[in-house]
């Protein structure tokens, strides 16, 4: 009986294609909205996590000044770090994998008759480890080059492409590159990290030894940032405390003085930021879920109209011997099949929309099977709930009255 009733219901849907389409439109939009919102939200969360991971996992960024957050270097009265601070952190604090002192300067680099505005970073070989960098070609600095401040550099993929052209990681190695007044030899090319999302190109940099930067570019001995990489699985809180303690001593701060430096924990930052995007995802999903509910009410509305409109048809079916539960089941199946079809259409639209939007927004597209299944089940459930009342009304019609209905 079920199979037959299913067949009858499917015929009825096919007979009323336009009405069926309009009926499911609300569900289609609702399901598409929920899935698109959740998928994009997940993608944004992952983009944030990727960006932070590309800064270096388990990384503490120490900067002078009290203000929190990136770019928060304080005023002129705050003393900067010294190279010796890096050495002290590495030797005196347990759980630290490596420490890279870092200085930066904005410069225009010239090579091959072309110029390019970029950032020159001065640091040690530890910088590769703190930033999760690998070399696509060439070699890191030698100890000699680091101590003497030799005219050598490692360039990021964006700089290499702009100055030398050619395929990724290929040309440029061994060439000369002019930074301000001095010329240096390109000894290595960084493997590309790609766009880290939100318009920040990490490949747009030139790395030179710290002494090279200090002597030939900035002309001072300032170390702007200390990048502290912790060992895998190390707990950041005690390391952070020990680090703060050590730096306070080295910077001769009294008990009453505030810290004149700040420590940014990328792990913590990752948790905070991805927590934020997750809340946004939940919020957007909830708003979209309301539209799904409205879509369900739309189904009930049209099914009720359909029962009224098809009163004579129902009367005929009852007269020629359809049982009450067969009519009930027919209308119920119509509602469920319609809303499930709407769910499937919604999933298709959501997939296309998510792929398009995520590529426009520069975030990864993550297929989430759970939300797709959930939306499909939910839309079929809506069919049962909102289809039941109209179906029961249809089944309980008096065949004589129904046949007389105009």
């Amino acid at each position, binding site marked *: 009986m079920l199979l037959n009733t299913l*067949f009858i219901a499917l015929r009825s849907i096919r007979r*009323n294609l336009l009405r069926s389409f309009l009926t499911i439109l609300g569900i289609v939009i609702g399901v598409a909205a929920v899935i698109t919102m959740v998928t994009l939200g997940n993608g944004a969360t992952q983009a944030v996590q990727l960006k932070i991971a590309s800064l270096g996992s388990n990384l503490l960024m120490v900067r002078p000044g009290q203000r929190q957050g990136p770019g928060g270097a304080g005023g002129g009265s705050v003393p900067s770090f010294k190279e010796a601070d890096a050495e002290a952190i590495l030797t005196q604090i347990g759980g630290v994998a490596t420490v890279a002192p870092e200085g930066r300067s904005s410069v225009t680099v010239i090579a091959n008759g072309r110029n390019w505005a970029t950032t020159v970073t001065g640091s040690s070989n530890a910088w590769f480890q703190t930033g999760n960098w690998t070399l696509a070609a060439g070699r890191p600095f030698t100890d000699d080059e680091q101590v003497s401040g030799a005219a050598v550099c490692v360039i990021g993929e964006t700089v290499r492409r702009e100055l030398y052209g050619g395929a990724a990681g290929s040309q440029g190695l061994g060439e000369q590159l002019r930074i301000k007044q001095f010329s240096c030899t390109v000894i290595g090319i960084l493997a590309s990290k790609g766009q880290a999302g939100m318009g920040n190109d990490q490949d747009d940099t030139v790395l030179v030894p710290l002494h090279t930067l200090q002597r030939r570019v900035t002309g001072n001995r300032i170390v702007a940032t200390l990048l502290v990489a912790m060992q895998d699985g190390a707990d950041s809180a005690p390391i952070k405390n020990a680090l703060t303690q050590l730096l306070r001593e080295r910077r001769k701060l009294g008990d009453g003085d505030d810290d004149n430096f700040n420590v940014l924990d990328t792990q913590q930052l990752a948790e905070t930021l991805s927590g934020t995007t997750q809340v946004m995802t939940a919020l957007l999903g909830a708003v979209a879920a309301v539209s799904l509910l409205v879509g369900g009410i739309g189904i009930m509305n049209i099914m009720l109209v359909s029962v009224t409109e098809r009163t004579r048809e129902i009367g005929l*079916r009852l007269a*020629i*011997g*359809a049982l009450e539960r*067969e009519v009930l089941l027919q209308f119920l199946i119509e509602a469920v099949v319609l809303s499930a079809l709407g769910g499937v259409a919604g999933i298709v639209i959501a997939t296309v929309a998510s792929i398009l939007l995520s590529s426009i927004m520069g975030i990864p597209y993550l297929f989430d099977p759970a939300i797709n299944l959930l939306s499909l089940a939910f839309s079929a459930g809506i069919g049962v709930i909102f289809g039941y009342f109209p179906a029961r009304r249809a089944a309980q019609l008096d065949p*004589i009255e129904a046949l007389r209905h105009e």
Partner: protein
Amino acid sequence: MSAAQSPSATPLIRLAAVTKVYGTGQAELLALKGIDLSINAGEFVAIMGPSGSGKSTAMNILGCLDTPTGGQYLFHGAHVEALTRDQRARLRRRFLGFVFQGFNLLARTSAQENVELPLLYRGDSAEVRRAAASRALASVGLTGWEEHTPAELSGGQQQRVAIARAIVTQPAVLLADEPTGNLDSQRSVEIMELLQGLNEAHGITVLMVTHEPDMAAYARRLVHFVDGHIASDEANASPTRPLAATTRSH
């Protein structure tokens, strides 16, 4: 040769002192005031009477769509007045075929699918349905029109599809409620000849409500209702016959 008085067989249909009351209290309306009627298998009965005479109420009870307020209705020996709604639906599905004044075909649905509809509720397989529907359409002269929807058929053709739908289950009784009410006289004659043919060639019992004496004249027994009573019940010794020379146009 009046079948009504045939003493031998148990009647297919027997109404005994059937009453029907609509409404309650002040609004109470006695539509049937004690009807006694026996109909044997193979009869062609026309039920006539003015509006409000109770003929439609009687037809609804005979068609097991409605139950009497009082009295007994025996169909095939079963007490219909004691059956539940679903039991009556099963009885209709098995023994009865309906033809309505307004055809009541499913819109945007081919003739074939319309005729198959009662078989779907019986749970017949697709092949059985197709074969039976083709046979039924052939017996109403609509071979070749299987794929046409009601909108593409004339009124007469639509009523033929409706008759095919009524007889596709090979019912014991065909109930026709004003089957020619929406048709012009030429189509009406065709429908009446078709019903007469089904009655005589296939032995289907036909009960027909009509207020047109011309149409009633095709039946072999005429029952007149007046004011909730049967005023007269007589055999029609010379039913109208199709002219041998009549050429049918579909």
